[in-house]
């Protein structure tokens, strides 16, 4: 009996312990988010969002340059990464059930696992160094390279979820395979591919390391793709490392903007995918 009591005690203790672990994980997110909110909300104002940085001490300094820069860099990255990723993903799902497909998948997963700082160094050696200067374009390429493997693998998975009968119906109507793939299969998988792409955007939106040696940063608003460009993440890094209290506050406020953007994307994806599951 005492043995059984001991076993039951261990059982209950472990339940409590694992529950505590879960509580810790949940609490750490809200702890960090709480700090970001309280740290950021003080510095947030309309002027902060629509003004460019001003010298220390001047009022109404802002991060408009970084917001515009981030939007441009993410757009560039998506324009490069998404078509390549989606088409590559189509190949993997349609023609990739063989040894070649296995090898490609292996290398693509290798790219996903490559630390982002290395992508930055790579783009520096192939673009920045030959061109002789930092540029927004090279930053966009770095982000695009980060996106490609993620988009390719989610596209592949989403296409594989499309029921086979749909494909057969298309083929039975005499349509060539490429039309069935693009017009029927990809269309059916479109919402899944889109949510995958949204997650990939959320992922690259938070990247700093690939931008350090490519887009660098810039203290004023610029839309020139061949020149350095500001980004929210680089600005946060730059301000956080500085000795000025005022810049620290700006780093927190910029963080609030960035994290809000990323969380909204993630939650939107969650809601979209939940609806799909309910319909199914």
């Amino acid at each position, binding site marked *: 009996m005492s043995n059984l009591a001991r076993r039951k005690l*261990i059982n209950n203790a*472990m*339940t409590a312990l*694992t*529950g505590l*672990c*879960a509580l810790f*994980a*949940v609490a*750490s*997110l809200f702890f*960090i988010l709480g*700090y*970001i909110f309280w*740290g950021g909300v003080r510095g947030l104002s309309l002027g902060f969002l629509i003004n460019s940085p001003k010298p220390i001490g001047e009022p109404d300094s802002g991060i408009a340059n970084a917001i515009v820069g981030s939007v441009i860099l993410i757009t560039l990255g998506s324009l490069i990464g998404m078509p*390549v*990723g989606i*088409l*590559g*993903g189509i*190949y*993997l799902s*349609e023609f*990739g*059930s063989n040894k070649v497909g296995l090898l490609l998948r292996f*290398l*693509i*997963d*290798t790219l996903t696992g*490559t*630390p982002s*700082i*290395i*992508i930055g*160094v790579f783009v520096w*050696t*192939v673009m920045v160094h030959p061109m002789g200067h930092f540029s927004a374009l090279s930053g966009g390429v770095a982000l695009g390279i980060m996106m*490609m493997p993620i988009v390719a693998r989610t596209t592949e*998975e989403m296409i*594989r979820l499309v029921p*086979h009968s749909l494909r*057969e119906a298309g*083929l*039975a109507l*005499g349509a*060539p*395979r*490429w039309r069935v*793939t693009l017009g029927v299969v990809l269309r059916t998988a479109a919402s899944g591919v889109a949510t995958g792409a949204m997650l990939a955007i*959320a992922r690259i939106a*938070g990247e*700093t*390391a690939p931008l*350090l040696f490519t887009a660098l940063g810039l203290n004023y608003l610029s839309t020139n793709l061949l020149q350095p460009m500001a980004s929210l993440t680089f600005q*946060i*890094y730059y301000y*956080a490392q500085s000795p000025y209290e005022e810049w620290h506050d700006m780093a*927190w406020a910029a963080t609030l903007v960035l994290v809000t953007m990323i*969380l909204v994307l*993630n939650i939107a994806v969650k809601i979209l995918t939940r609806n799909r599951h309910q319909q199914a």
Partner: protein
Amino acid sequence: MGSTLAGEGSATPLTPNKSPLRFGRAVSGLRARPRIGDPLFKWATGFFAVLIAGLAVLIMVEMAINSKLPIAKFGFGFLTRSVWDPVAEQFGALPFVYGTAVSAVIALLISVPISLGVAIFLVEKAPRGLSNPIMFIVQLLAAIPSVVFGLWAIFVLAPMLRNHVYPALQSSLGFLPLFRGNQNGLGLLTAGLILSIMVLPIITAVTTDVLRAVPGTQREAALALGSTKWEATLIVLQNARSGISGAIILGLGRAIGETMAVTMVIGNRPQISASLFDPSFTIASAIANEFTEASGEIYLQSLIELGLILFFVTFIINMLARLLVWSVTRGEGRGAHV
């Protein structure tokens, strides 16, 4: 499941080029045209798949080419030299390898037990209605950018450690050289701690997948023999151990490649010090911190060679982890190729 479906797809007699009936031509009876659309489609999409895969190879080649100076000058000794002196143009990777390894080990020591606890709670204990939102929250933790963790670590974590935790550690465990000396809050231990929060989501997510893949009959058998729920869980853990090791190794890969947050709190000094409070450097943070200001070709190329080492290490780690996870989940589950 997915792969068998697609396997049937390419073998099914209904695909036009393999069909004995040749649907496309037979339907209308019109003059048979050679179809270039399908092969063209295959080659076009194939081009992009190869492009992405080729980038992985190209990155390696490009970094090897761009680090030939230090490779020629220092050879394999680069890995074991502990001097990092840009002025004398002497470079060795050991302090960075040390910092990377120690910070990653600290991160895993803390995050592995917690991640396993969360995963066990989600799969074995919590009802669906509770486990789904918790899983989502863990995913959100993974979505927070590295630079944001870094900011939080500089202004919240580091002062907390400096004022409360490190003095307490030194007074209680100060007889160990690990917990002695400098206490400004920026150093190896702080980097390890922030890393532990950052790798928690990935280890939790993959372990959850692995545990879900263990057949329910094993739990039922154990319970039927009179074991408590925890004893049944132990059996599940036993059978999932290779997958769990995969999850841990995947977390290790993340910790090693993590750049921004570490760069912001590790103190950035290339030294091997006995104290965990002391500033250090990881491979990734060295590249982030010194690359743009590296003057001199061999300095720059030494940093690129550090990157090459990092690439190889993460490559091997990720490959191993994927094999281990796959051995349990057989390709099912979300985390298998993260």
